[in-house]
């Protein structure tokens, strides 16, 4: 176990060192991605500037929501997105067969050897929004609040990693699965807004089968002491538990797909 962990950390270190060979390119990539998100967030800010709020959410509250959403996503996606989006090519090109005969879990190898530090822009933007928004919102600070903030961010990262793992795993059965990431990102974009503005069917979906509501809306609502439809007083526990539960679902689904994998390459 210890050897495996040190090997995974070594793979991560190799990846980071490789990327750091092109530092200027990395910094430009961070700036570009932060700019891309800032463009969308600026549109949301413009709506609130004109209409005062979105569904009762003011700009500092929305900034906190967007910060949670961006940071939680970045923490999960740096381990999974680029790596598992390639699953289709890995399976169809036969590379996955070579991973299966290595003395290391193929998922762990993929995830850690492809650790992506290009999410620096996301992290800075997300953390920046949270740091800017928190002092402007009346929150009673105690141990429970701190646990909720850090726990919910970790949970959001786990939800991201789990969902991307499940979508990537589909390639083992379907072969072509890259297009499925599109539907994930459509719902993911939906989850950057307060779920309370959507129709009940979407609200239910975002806290059940597509648990992206737990990435930001549920924990931030709890922090702001706003009611969360369909969860009520269980919202705080649900926000913290959603990540570990989605990890369990991802483990079961990955193993299910692996059992049915019959080779896709030539």
């Amino acid at each position, binding site marked *: 176990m210890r050897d495996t962990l040190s090997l995974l950390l070594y793979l991560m270190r190799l990846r980071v060192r490789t990327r750091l060979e092109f530092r200027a390119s990395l910094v430009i990539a961070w700036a570009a991605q932060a700019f891309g998100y*800032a*463009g969308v967030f600026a*549109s949301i800010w413009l709506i609130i500037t004109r209409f005062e709020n*979105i*569904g009762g959410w003011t700009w500092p509250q929305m900034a906190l929501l967007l910060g949670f959403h961006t940071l939680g996503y970045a923490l999960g996606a740096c381990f999974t997105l680029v790596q598992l989006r390639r699953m289709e090519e890995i399976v169809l090109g036969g590379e996955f067969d070579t991973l299966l005969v290595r003395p290391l879990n193929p998922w762990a190898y993929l995830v850690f050897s492809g650790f992506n530090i290009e999410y620096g822009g996301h992290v800075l933007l997300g953390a920046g929004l949270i740091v800017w928004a928190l002092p402007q919102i009346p929150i009673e600070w105690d141990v429970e609040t701190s646990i909720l903030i850090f726990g919910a961010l970790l949970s959001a990262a786990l939800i991201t990693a789990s969902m991307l793992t499940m979508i990537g795993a589909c390639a083992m059965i379907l072969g072509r699965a890259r*297009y499925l990431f599109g539907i994930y990102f*459509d719902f993911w974009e939906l989850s950057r*807004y307060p779920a309370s*503005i*959507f129709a009940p069917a979407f609200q239910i979906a975002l806290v059940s089968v597509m648990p992206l509501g737990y990435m930001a809306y549920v924990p931030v609502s709890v922090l702001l002491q706003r009611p969360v439809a369909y969860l009520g007083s269980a919202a705080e526990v649900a926000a913290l538990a959603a990540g570990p539960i989605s990890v369990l679902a991802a483990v079961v689904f990955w193993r299910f797909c692996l059992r049915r994998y019959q080779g896709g390459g030539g």
Partner: protein
Amino acid sequence: MSAFLALIRASFQREVEHRAKMLVRILGSLVEIVARVSIWQAVFSGHGSMNGITLSQMVTYALIGGTILSSWDATMIVRDVGTTIRTGAIGATLLRPVGYPLMLLAEQLGARFFDWLLISLPVIAIMGFCYGLQLPASFGHGILFVGFLFVSLAVLMLTGILLGLFSFWVFDAHSLEWFMRGALATLSGGLVPIWFFPAGLATVAHVLPFSWITYHPMAVYLGARDLASSALYLVAGGGWVMALGLAVAFVWSRACGQVVVQGG
């Protein structure tokens, strides 16, 4: 010309082959429209109208602006150019009997026409049935909107190709793509029309070519301008298309000098 049309047809047929992908894109587009309409329903709940714009107009803006006039996928051109350069495929591309920018344009047009016909129109029909869709303000506005549709397409494609061609120098198309996304997200008026921008930003956004992608076509469709003024904006949009076309031709002529092909 026949090669150009053949490339458009080939690109269209390539998209048709992936039926499962098409269904997923329709579903994704429906989700996106639900999000946009929900936002406008939420913000208009306390206001009858804002700057003379009603909720019903904004629903139509979201339906057409989020589908036919959407700008998000155009950044893929930048990615395609980057991949062609990074993999060295640009060498073989230069041997073809059609100029590379023209080839890119044809391939993107095929994909876009597919998108309009088999994704955008069904989504507009479904969501229009659910939320209500306004018709163009008048017959004249409708005719002018068709003109704006092609100006929008040309500005979007040419901006993407122009930015993509800069990959010949910076070698980092991924970052260029994100810069383009950020600029288009706000300045095209894709999500928020320029009507709702603060005065200073609105003045700048009005004259930049990005606003011809979504905002100006929708302003004409909804009748926010009279016919004479709309026609003037259409001419101005045509001017931007010519300017961007010339810029693409100039940058491409310089980019060709950057290519060094080894081996063979």
